[in-house]
């Protein structure tokens, strides 16, 4: 393996690298030993603590699956509502009329500057005070409201960047053959931009899935993360095991979404049918949370 940053390795460099490798592995082993002995001292590695997850399906069907269902429901709802809203805001930001462009820009920048958690807390109180939504449904409504407000603004920026990433000639040619402005947008720019934006939209979905966990931790929304505390009290203080399993489920979902997004990005870049304009998966989402938010 060579790179522009270092030379092909000769005998001395190879020996040195083996030394580094051994040293690094020793450090890792020491850390691992420290972690395992710490866990062992607190009795967190006992089979009883892990048995509910690894030795049966009860924990999965009672706690993890219902929580996961709520997480996915909130994420899907938020994406479905935020996507059209974001598209409208994004297109409005490209408007030629200042009276449309400027207010929309202010709204988008405002909601991008505010933490999702603040929006969620606001939503929870809003639904409690001004609507008749039952107290059981309120957390879901609040989580979705917060996620929609924030992600619609982020998606607006993705849509804007997606449309701007198309070659100028596309819009100019469409105008030249006599299409009206909204026809240019509907028939020429948007369809191409959607393809260019797909990777960025999918990685925004990762951000949404991660942010639903906020609802579980702060708003009593019964999501996957909220399943940790009833599990660890029911199965005898197996906090570490519960957290590990929940984290693995989250990572599995998000990792497959992330991998899918980057596979799609590579594929679109290679594609011969399109203009080759692609918005990198992290282009705008990077602003968020880069994860934006959480």
């Amino acid at each position: 393996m060579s790179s522009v940053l270092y030379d092909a390795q000769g005998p001395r460099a190879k020996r040195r690298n083996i030394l580094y490798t051994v040293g690094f592995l020793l450090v890792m082993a020491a850390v691992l030993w420290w972690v395992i002995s710490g866990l062992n001292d607190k009795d967190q590695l006992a089979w009883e603590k892990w048995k509910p997850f690894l030795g049966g399906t009860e924990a999965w069907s009672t706690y993890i699956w219902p929580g996961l269902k709520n997480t996915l429901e909130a994420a899907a709802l938020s994406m479905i509502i935020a996507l059209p809203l974001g598209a409208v805001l994004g297109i409005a930001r490209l408007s030629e009329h200042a009276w449309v462009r400027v207010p929309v820009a202010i709204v988008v920048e405002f909601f991008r500057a505010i933490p999702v958690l603040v929006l969620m807390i606001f939503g929870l109180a809003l639904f409690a005070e001004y609507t008749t939504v039952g107290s059981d449904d309120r957390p879901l409504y609040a989580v979705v409201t917060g996620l929609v407000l924030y992600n619609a603004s982020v998606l607006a920026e993705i849509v804007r960047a997606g449309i701007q990433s198309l070659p100028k000639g596309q819009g100019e040619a469409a105008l030249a053959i006599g299409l009206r402005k909204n026809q240019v947008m509907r028939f020429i720019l948007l369809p191409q931009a959607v393809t260019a934006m797909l990777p960025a939209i999918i990685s925004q979905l990762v951000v949404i899935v991660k942010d639903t966990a906020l609802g579980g931790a702060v708003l009593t929304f019964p999501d996957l993360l909220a399943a940790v505390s009833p599990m660890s009290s029911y199965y005898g203080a197996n906090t570490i095991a519960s957290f590990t399993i929940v984290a693995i489920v989250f990572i599995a979902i998000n990792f497959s979404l992330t991998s899918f997004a980057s596979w799609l990005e590579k594929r679109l870049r290679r594609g011969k049918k399109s203009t080759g304009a692609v918005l990198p998966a992290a282009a705008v989402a990077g602003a968020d949370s880069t994860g934006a938010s959480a």
Partner: protein
Amino acid sequence: MFDFLDHYDLLGAFWTTVQLTVISAIGSLIWGTVLAAMRVGPVPVMRGFGTAYVNIVRNTPLTVIILFSSLGLNDTLGISLGATDFKVIGFRLAVLGLTAYTSAFVCEALRAGINTVPVGQAEAARALGLSFVQVLTLVVLPQAFRAVVGPLTNVLIALTKNTTVAAAIGVAEAALLMKQMIENEAQLLLISAVIAFGFVCLTLPTGLILGWVGKKVAVKR
């Protein structure tokens, strides 16, 4: 109209937010740079570790990391990071979680920056006989850092907003104060407007100033 604010330590809460942001930012800049160096370095084990770290941490919700540092590390394993007061413990655990999470994004931003440095720069440095560490610290990283001020600003703004997650483990920062105020006062819209204004004041200038700095320091090619 704003009388009720006298009963709350609004400035103190935002000061905690700022402290969380600054300390975690410094921490993740350091750890993120080390991770980036590992990911582009010649030792396969370190490359593997860096890649695994970034992929795992980037795909874990920050809330899970922060809650784990409180319920897992502190409550279950008794790690208190050298503090005895529970407020200080919560603050340090939050910094630990935020740093661990944000470094993954710093690492990715830096790696993208390293790719923008023309190949000839590193080749010339190698031709002079510089070692990997010298190539990285003397030639490539200084140019990479100047190229990634923009992306790192986005990470910093995201970090500022992410400090609100510390509310989940009871750190007295702005979002927790907002929750308490909403519970005690019938001033929902006003309270939300004040808190939102506070965050806009923190994030917008950061973006504008660092955006300007980024343009100033960018290497003209």
